[in-house]
């Protein structure tokens, strides 16, 4: 079943392009004030651009497609070709959109920047004096807002700006006025940050950007050289993109705002199990064998979402030849929709300590650590190490947690327990306490029940195998459908007869998230940069969409953690994680 995050970024590719278009209008504004009739010329170029783009897209997709990118191209061309006849501009926009964009397959598939392609064409026919708008204080806001786009391709942008500044310094023309005159900010922040045509690779981006900013200005100050330089950068970026298959080594860490807030009152806790949580009068003294037998017999399983039998996991750690063994209690709760793990840590410190004590009877640990995002409100004895992990998503993923807490980097296919590192979810440790001390079968669990619309959540204790919709209707009777899964980032639509399985620790009522599944991937690479495993998500998704599954092997989709962060942040509104899941299943099955 397809899983998806219930929450999504508010930004779409069209929003970003619309914002860019607004900034470009600010660049045009001084010219319009000086010569109001030039507005008509711009409107003519814009109209032709929109007509060409809309028509070709309609022929290609058989439906209307947003043409804001064509408006951006028209504005870029109008800014870079001042003083040429309108006919030249009209030829330029037609050339830019047909040869620079649609001949390659349309938005997101072009290898050349359409605006710069149009500029190159026009500069071969007409004598263009300037490669940027004339400096005036009216440009201040445009220059300032341009800086926002640097985030898309920071290295290439910095490279080209540094290259241009170096060239100006070499020519002994370096001044603030000349920086604006030569359009250093415009070329760096607007043209070199086009995610479709410029590489996201930091090293190559910086070097290629530097060269494409430096050499053209050393050759001369005509826009032809600048355009040629940037188009060569585009071609080099395309070549790099073809050969980039390996996962990124140091993917960025990304924090996601919580979907529901934490709470402190016990009134937000509900027990639907009708089981009494009776206190234990006296803890029995048990040997390791009996502890393990009770863990196995009472069916303790991984409550973090893995649902793996805990007995097997502990047994693997016991059998491990590792000299030093470690226990990490995972209370990180990195998913922005979960609240029950922290509640358990706050509410049952004695039970968790007892669980740790039981585990320590089975395995002699060198270190025992409780990993949390924030130790605030926790009440554990001083001899127990509480480690505060960095606040990013997914900090709670097993191998990420090990790297963070123990500074041990395990290969993606390594089993931590076989390396002597036992990572257990906090509720699993609580279950060990119940299974061993109370000798209870584990047939219920705590989970988070969230109302995403209202930003509210509660902790509920539910019997396993109870129906999801019955639980939802007991709290939120007005909702006829719900979502469930491992967290707000990994949900699926709950079916009518869906029951609480071992891997469900989150239920939510919410509107369907808006995945518009746009055709127009802008290759922003947010999916690649944010993927905690550094996977080339956009490439994997493209291969899945094109049904070229046999080409997936070098991209290692099997390393996917199913965290859903790629779907969360995709401005094209694609549910990328479902595509990577398809790829992962294909690789594992083949």
């Amino acid at each position, binding site marked *: *079943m*397809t899983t998806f995050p219930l929450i999504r970024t508010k930004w779409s590719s069209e929003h970003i392009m619309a914002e860019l278009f607004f900034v470009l209008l600010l660049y045009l504004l001084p010219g319009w004030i000086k010569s109001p009739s030039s507005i008509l010329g711009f409107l003519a170029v814009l109209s032709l651009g929109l007509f060409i783009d809309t028509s070709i897209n309609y022929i290609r997709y058989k439906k209307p497609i947003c043409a804001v990118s064509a408006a951006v191209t028209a504005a870029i061309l109008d800014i870079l070709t001042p003083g040429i006849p309108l006919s030249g501009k009209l030829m330029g926009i037609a050339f830019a959109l047909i040869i620079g964009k649609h001949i390659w397959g349309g938005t997101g598939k072009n290898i050349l920047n359409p605006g710069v392609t149009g500029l190159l064409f026009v500069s071969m026919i007409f004598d263009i004096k300037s490669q940027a708008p004339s400096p005036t204080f009216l440009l201040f806001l445009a220059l300032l807002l341009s800086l926002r786009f640097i985030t898309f391709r920071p290295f290439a942008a910095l490279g080209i700006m540094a290259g241009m500044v170096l060239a100006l310094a070499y020519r002994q023309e370096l001044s603030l006025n000349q920086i604006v005159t030569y359009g250093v900010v415009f070329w760096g922040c607007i043209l070199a940050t086009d995610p479709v045509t410029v590489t996201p690779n930091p090293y190559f981006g910086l070097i290629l950007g530097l060269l494409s900013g430096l050499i053209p200005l050393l050759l001369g100050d005509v826009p032809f050289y600048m355009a040629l330089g940037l188009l060569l950068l585009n071609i080099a970026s395309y070549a790099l993109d073809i050969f980039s298959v390996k996962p990124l080594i140091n993917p960025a860490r990304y924090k996601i705002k919580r979907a529901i807030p934490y709470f402190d009152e016990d009134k937000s806790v509900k027990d639907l199990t009708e089981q009494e949580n009776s206190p234990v009068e006296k803890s029995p003294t048990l040997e390791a064998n009996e502890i393990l037998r009770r863990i196995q017999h009472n069916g303790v399983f991984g409550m973090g979402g893995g649902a793996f039998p805990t007995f097997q996991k502990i047994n693997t750690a016991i059998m491990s030849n590792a000299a030093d063994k470690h226990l990490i209690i995972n209370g990180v709760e990195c998913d922005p929709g979960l609240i029950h793990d922290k509640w358990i840590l706050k509410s049952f410190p004695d039970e968790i300590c007892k669980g740790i004590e039981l585990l320590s009877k089975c395995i002699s640990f060198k270190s025992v650590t409780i990993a949390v995002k924030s130790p605030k409100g926790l009440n554990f004895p001083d001899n127990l190490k509480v480690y505060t992990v960095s606040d990013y998503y997914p900090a709670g993923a097993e191998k990420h947690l090990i790297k963070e807490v123990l500074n041990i980097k395990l290969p993606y296919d390594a089993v931590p327990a076989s390396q002597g590192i036992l990572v257990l979810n906090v509720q699993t440790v609580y279950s060990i306490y119940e299974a061993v001390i109370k000798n209870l079968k584990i047939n219920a669990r705590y989970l988070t029940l969230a109302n995403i619309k209202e930003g509210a959540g509660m902790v509920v204790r539910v019997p396993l195998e109870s129906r999801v919709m019955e639980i939802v209707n007991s709290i939120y009777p*007005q909702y*006829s*459908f719900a979502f469930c899964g491992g967290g707000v980032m990994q949900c*699926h*639509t709950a*079916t*009518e007869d869906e029951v609480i399985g071992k891997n469900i620790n989150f239920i939510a009522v919410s*509107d*369907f998230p808006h995945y*518009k*599944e746009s055709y127009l991937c802008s290759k922003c690479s947010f999916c690649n940069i944010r993927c905690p495993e550094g996977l080339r998500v956009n490439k994997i998704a493209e291969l899945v969409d094109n049904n070229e599954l046999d080409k997936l092997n070098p991209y290692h989709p099997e390393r996917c953690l199913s965290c859903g962060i790629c779907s969360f942040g995709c401005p094209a509104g694609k549910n990328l994680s479902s595509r990577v899941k398809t790829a992962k299943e294909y690789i594992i099955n083949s």
Partner: protein
Amino acid sequence: MIKFNRDFFTGKEILFIGYSSRNNAFSKSIYQAFMNNGIKVYPVNNKANASFDIKVYRNLGELPTVPSCAFVLANKNNAKTIVNELSGKGVKRVLFQNSKYVDHDIFDICNKNGIETAVGCPMMIFGNGMHRVHAFLAGVKR
């Protein structure tokens, strides 16, 4: 034929005949628009090989309950069979996606069987952006 507006969906449940996997994004957007507005949807598609993310019923017999309102997004050639079947199950209101999916014979059959009909895209009622413009141009009150 009655005027299409929000009141058409007073039953809070609707049958979605012709929930398509071929045109999944469109079907899904309509499905989600209904659900997000508190209308429970029972999608139906008789294609055995259709692959869906949500529970889709193969025929009306599989349904746990038959709502009194239906939305039809199916081929015009199948409309007569669909309408007769819906009538047999006690459906009282049928909304057709647009005039391409229905002709006057079908309206006559519906009239004879006491079924109220309307033509219009549900997104005009529940959608935003261009759907609002579409509703305005079509004179549909949201």
